């Protein structure tokens, strides 16, 4: 009940604001035009003062929740009370009405301003006024920066490759705080502490809120700081609440990464031997491996509601799901345009992700240069369909530039075992269709080493049952479709 009245405060305050301002307007109008508005004016001052008092009562109840900055609440409270008080005086003491009325309106304005600050934050009306001190630390413009940069900062000193490199990362300050600042502080910091929770210092984050701890370092699934972000937006516990600025997928992944790696609040300094830098980073840049890693977020089943209290996040079910959960850079538009002009059908695999499927079904005559062109987005291509095209073994050398390929359709192409040497270098390949090709048992043996292979189509190939059986033994988890399902002639002797 008290809560209900307290929550009426934001509604009630608008009554005195309107009525008192109108009373002032009536007063000015009456004197200016010499009209007798005495009775109406008194009524307005009386009602205005009365409603101001009601608003004060409700406001006092609201302040008891303790979720607001105490200092600001004090100022708002006293100016509000003054508004009500002077409003009442204006009503009762007609002799000094103009002076008292002026004071009432002034207090009303100031109280209203403080109230606005409480609700919307102090920088709402005059943005930038408060941040002068904060930006004096040499923080880069982190909000829009590529979050992945940090991990490859080692090459800052790439010129002196023989010397050990020092890597300094302050993940909490440079990455986590900016997210909290833009998405969480408006309700969980010094000015407001909804749910008894503040997120503006290490101590407060460790302390948690009314409902207990929000952070379990190393375990995002047990940290409400992470799990509440995943609840459906309609859920009461979803953070930030519906209507507020939401975290981007990458920001959620960033919080996940931070908690998963121990939720450190300190700067980390590592010394890296020169060998590590050269092998790791030089290779990355020439191979075209991701130079822009993004934080890993386990895949979430679509349209499922995590159970309230502690959402359980499924482990990635497949290489494809794992990759989809790790968005890489978007495909280069120029490459896509060129390929489309050559009749290669390219689709996004998911709604907004960077990964693609490429289909050569419309290509009249395959040429190796098309595959070379496709390698321009080789990182992004997850499914590739070359069915029925005159693809030769040597053409498939280019496949090495498609490290994220999960499905490959080569059925009815003139390839032989030599092509499988290139195919077996695909670390994420899950499905491979070879039906109608000339591959033999020797080629099959190479496929056993594909770590993620799950389904293999071999109908109408030159493989033998013995060769297939050997592969089955080597990879019992593999589903091998050899076209054995046949229809037998049913027994038709039976009379109706």
């Amino acid at each position: 009940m008290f809560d209900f009245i307290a929550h009426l405060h934001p509604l009630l305050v608008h009554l005195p604001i309107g009525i008192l301002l109108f009373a002032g307007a009536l007063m000015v109008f009456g004197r200016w035009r010499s009209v007798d508005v005495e009775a109406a004016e008194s009524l307005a001052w009386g009602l205005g003062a009365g409603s101001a008092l009601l608003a004060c009562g409700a406001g006092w109840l609201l302040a008891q929740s303790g979720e607001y900055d105490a200092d600001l609440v004090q100022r708002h409270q006293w100016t509000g009370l003054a508004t009500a008080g002077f409003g009442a005086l204006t009503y009762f003491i007609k002799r000094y009405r103009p002076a008292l009325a002026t004071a009432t309106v002034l207090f009303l304005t100031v109280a209203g301003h403080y109230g606005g600050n409480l609700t919307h934050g102090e920088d709402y009306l005059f943005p930038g006024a408060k941040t002068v001190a904060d930006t004096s630390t040499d923080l880069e413009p982190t909000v829009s920066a590529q979050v992945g940069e940090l991990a490859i900062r080692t090459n800052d000193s790439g010129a002196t490759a023989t010397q050990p490199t020092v890597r300094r990362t302050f993940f909490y300050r440079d990455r986590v705080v900016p997210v909290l600042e833009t998405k969480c502080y408006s309700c969980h910091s010094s000015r407001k502490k909804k749910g008894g929770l503040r997120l503006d210092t290490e101590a407060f984050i460790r302390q948690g809120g009314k409902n207990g701890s929000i952070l379990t370092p190393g375990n995002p699934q047990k940290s409400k700081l992470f799990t509440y972000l995943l609840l459906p937006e309609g859920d009461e516990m979803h953070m930030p609440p519906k209507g507020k600025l939401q975290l981007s997928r990458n920001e959620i992944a960033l919080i996940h990464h931070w908690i998963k790696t121990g939720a450190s609040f300190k700067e980390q300094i590592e010394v890296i031997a020169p060998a590590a830098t050269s092998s790791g980073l030089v290779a990355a840049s020439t191979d075209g491996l991701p130079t822009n890693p993004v934080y890993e977020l386990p895949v979430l089943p679509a349209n499922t509601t995590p159970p309230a209290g502690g959402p359980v996040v499924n482990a990635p079910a497949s290489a494809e799901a794992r990759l989809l959960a790790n968005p890489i850079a978007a495909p280069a538009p120029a490459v896509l345009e060129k390929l489309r002009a050559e009749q290669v059908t390219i689709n996004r695999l998911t709604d907004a992700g960077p990964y693609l499927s490429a289909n050569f079904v419309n290509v009249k005559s395959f040429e190796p240069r098309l595959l070379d062109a496709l390698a321009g987005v080789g990182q992004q291509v997850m499914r590739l369909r070359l069915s029925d095209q005159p693809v030769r073994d040597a053409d498939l050398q280019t496949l090495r530039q498609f490290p994220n390929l999960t499905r490959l359709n080569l059925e009815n192409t003139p390839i032989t075992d030599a092509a499988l040497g290139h195919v077996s270098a695909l670390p994420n390949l899950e499905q491979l269709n070879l039906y109608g090709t000339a591959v033999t048992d020797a080629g099959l043996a190479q496929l056993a080493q594909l770590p993620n292979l799950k389904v293999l189509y071999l109908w109408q190939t030159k493989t033998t049952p013995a060769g297939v059986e050997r592969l089955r033994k080597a990879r019992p988890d593999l589903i091998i479709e050899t076209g054995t399902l046949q229809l037998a002639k049913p027994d038709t002797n039976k009379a109706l």
Partner: protein
Amino acid sequence: MAHHHDEPFRVGGGDFSDLNRKLDRRDFLLRTASGLGAVALSGLLTGRALANPAEAMAHQISARLGQIAPKAKRVVYLFMAGGPSQFETFDYKPKLLSMLGKNLPDSVRKGQRLTGMSANQAALPIAPSAYQFKPYGKNQTWVSELLPYTAQVVDELCLIKSVYTEQINHDPAITFFQTGHQLPGRPSIGSWVSYGLGSENQNLPAFIVLVSKDASKDQPLYARLWGNGFLPSEHQGVQFRSGKDPVLFLNNPEGYDGTDRQQMLEYLTQLNQLQNESWGDPEVNARIAQYEMAYRMQTSVPDVMDTTREPDEVFDLYGPSSRDKGSYAANCLLARKLLEKDVRFVQLYHQGWDHHGGLPKGMKHQCGQIDRATAALIVDLKRRGLLEDTLVVWGGEFGRTVYSQGQLSATNYGRDHHPRCFTMWMAGAGVKAGITYGQTDDFSYNIVKDPVHVHDFQATLMHLLGVDHEQLTYKYQGRRFRLTDVHGKVVNGILS
């Protein structure tokens, strides 16, 4: 209120936001069309969409489920028009054998209103199936002796025995199944899919319809069942026929030169473009798209319709009638060829299942026509690696009654329409193989477990294609329409 800027900007009857969205997707799907198509379209696609293909991709219709790649890429829907009896196919009711000729208990019917065809019968005598059932496959699923080939692939099927509809007569019931509404005028499922997902093959329509010529036409089919309703007309189903011209009016008239036709179309496109600039009517774009598609189909259709290169083994699999063009079996084989070419939605219709009398003979004939080719389609898709991303659907518009319409004898009886329960099956992409979902009572009159409404089936089909049926809408006559109206729940129990 706060979202009023999201409302599409409308001019006259045209909805410009839809227009732009369509252009973006058209851009995405059709830009690769060289020559005529490219010339025509690059003039049409102005501004943002043309400037940046990557951005154009991002503006694809975003009814997709998001971060999970869809399981199904294509659909083949085997529609059994007329309402096949569940008693002689999949819904085995052995208890009925001892009740031959007994009156259907009132406790089962509960006063349900019957059709005018059997409402005036003095009695409602129970008619058990005249055909035997046997358990098949790993899961020992009961299948009628009328479907000896289908029985051999039953481990690939997901039988749904608890489908129900709201319509009791053919036309409203088929319309309801195909469009989500019993009154004519809404888009067919295939049109929705074409609109939502487009096609990977630019040389064939996204939605192709094949009607068996060898079925008895006891109940008519109308082209509006595969109509586009209010969607842009390039999304209507295109019927492929068995005669000399598979698609009517597609080929150039005798003696007419192809170059002339191309020039004529180029000028026509320019005229249409002028028209489009002054009116902005989306149908003008639809018209341009259709002319372009027809032009490309002049070469692609004869190619795909040509089954002479299929080996004998394939005809043997589908059965002897598969050599007879236009038969159900030939259509199944053709469907496989279309799916191989990545046609998005292939719909077959086979009429003649409306057995009000003479049911045992009629069912034997009908099942004999479809059984082998249907099973062959499953086998053929599976060994080619197509079943993993193709959804196969089999079913009619309603079921049939447990009681006999007209005279009942041990070998002859009829069955009236029954909307309250009937059996369908799905197979392939994203559906659990070898399961039975839902259960009917001993009379197959009422559902006792897991009912599946027509809208639920439609929602599930869309879900498997990666489309949220609640999000895929089209604004027409001032409101947004969707396939499932305001209903439909995804049947999670059958998803693999």
